[in-house]
């Protein structure tokens, strides 16, 4: 069985800068993997390369063994790659119900249907309701997204990604900006993501990282620095040194 995600010697250059250099790593199906690193390590570039927002300068990206290096973002989404965004990327004027209806419909390939009213397909409606329930959005399902509390928006952010029935989910700082009192909802949600979904978490919140990840990769200056189990990484003196500015990665 091919790995869920594999990158082979991935490189990205912007002029003289090289935010991603020779990154080769793989995620097994069902993995709970965290990608961490100090500021400017190249995590954002990495996620943009994986999702197809940026094209790599060289190297390949494989999804379930299939080469997706040249595919556009929406095509990757169709193949089962979903992501959340560090800063909410939601549809402010739509309600959570509408947002999820849209996502479910695109996933099911009915986005071109110009005739049947949205949300009236029974299986899709059931899926929307299930997502609403799973992400605790029932009380706000009919409110404009723009006026939701931030924590609810973060949950919706993840719910939209899950609506795409991803096999691979990229979580970009899911807890960023969430007030303390709403944080535990996010943590609990992330913890209970379906086991068959491969998850790559990009995060600075060490509580979340160490609670969640079974393996951790540390990115420094665009290159993979250390990879290992949480214990290994936590104990690795080089990692601490990098974070404290004691070594030059």
């Amino acid at each position: 069985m091919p790995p869920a995600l594999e990158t082979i010697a991935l490189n990205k250059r912007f002029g003289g800068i090289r935010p991603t250099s020779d990154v080769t790593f793989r995620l097994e199906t069902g993995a709970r993997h965290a990608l961490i690193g100090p500021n400017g390590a190249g995590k954002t570039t990495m996620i943009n390369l994986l999702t197809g927002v940026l094209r790599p300068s060289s190297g390949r990206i494989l999804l379930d063994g299939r080469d997706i290096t040249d595919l556009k973002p929406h095509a990757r989404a169709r193949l089962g790659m979903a992501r959340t965004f560090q800063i909410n990327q939601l549809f402010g004027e739509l309600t959570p119900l509408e947002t999820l209806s849209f996502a479910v419909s695109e996933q099911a390939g009915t986005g071109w249907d110009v005739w049947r009213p949205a949300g009236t397909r029974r299986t899709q409606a059931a899926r929307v309701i299930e997502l609403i329930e799973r992400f605790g959005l029932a009380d706000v399902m009919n409110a404009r997204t723009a006026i939701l509390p931030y924590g609810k928006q973060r949950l919706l952010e993840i719910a939209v990604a899950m609506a795409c029935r991803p096999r691979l989910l990229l979580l970009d700082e899911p807890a960023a900006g969430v007030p303390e009192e709403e944080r535990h909802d996010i943590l609990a949600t992330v913890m209970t993501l379906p086991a068959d979904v491969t998850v790559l978490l990009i995060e600075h919140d060490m509580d979340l990282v160490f609670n969640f990840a079974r393996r951790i990769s540390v990115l420094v200056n665009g290159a993979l620095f250390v990879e290992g189990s949480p214990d290994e990484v936590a104990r690795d003196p080089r990692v601490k040194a990098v974070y404290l500015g004691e070594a030059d990665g």
Partner: protein
Amino acid sequence: MSPQAQADAAQLLAGRARWHPFEVLFWLAAAASTVLLPGHHLILTEIAWLALFALSLDLILGYAGIVSLGHAAFFGLGAYAAGLLAKHELVNEPLLALLLAGLAAALLGFVTSFLVLRGADLTRLMVTLGVALLLRELANKHAWLTGGADGLQGVTVEPLLGRFRFDMFGHTGYVYTLAVTFVLFLVARRIMNSSFGLSLQAMKENPARAEAVGMPVSRRLIAVYTLAAGYAGIAGALLTQTTAFTSLDVFSFERSADLLLVLIIGGAGYLYGGLIGAVVFKLLQDSLSTITPQYWPFWIGLLLVAIVLVGRERITAWTAPLRAFAGRLDRRRGAAATKA
């Protein structure tokens, strides 16, 4: 989630497309005007095709977020297509000619949509404007076909369905225009309540995320732009058929600009904006220009300035009930359902 909440959610999902009393009332009033206001059918005709034209702009501006200052290109093409078909007796049935004019405009919309995909607001504004002005020049230069600056003379429109003659009082013209507008509104309403329509709204709100969810954004844009162009073409054709005349004015920059005002006055993005805007704008323009034939644009200008300064959202809040109940999700009923 309680079973009740689940039922609510299901009901809300299915209820997006339900008709609200306000909508029914609106169309009943429109139908009643054919009988109750026989002396005003001419301006009502103008309102009706303007409403259709504004509805067409709403499809791309209100639903897909494309700002256009050249929507008159499609309107004009439709107008000339219908005029030429009638003048040279190529197609005598007005309804068929209407359809052909719409198709011609849709084709132009499809071709030019690729230009509109590039660039941001200002670029789009100028490209659409440029296309309309080019068409205007084209029509101007080919005077042998279009009559040039004198307009297309000698258009005679055959009776509708072979039976209803377009009379001087505009009765047939009004019923015809209103009926066409109503039917096309129904179609637009259906489309905008569909998955396709929902995806357009999502794309307008956040194209990057819509793409990340798996939506082919460019292709949807092309589709809706083509559709809107077809609608605009039909509106133009209605103008020609009801006045038996068309001229270069149909392509003018002022027409596109006025159209934008119409839509903004009514509020974009809920289908009724263009319709209400058309009614308000025309009646306002007509009454103002009757009171002060020479200085009425001043008051229109003042209105625009005021609308922007006060805030469009607040100004168009008076349409809120309709807006809330119409094509979009019915929140009040949702809240009631949740309470129940």
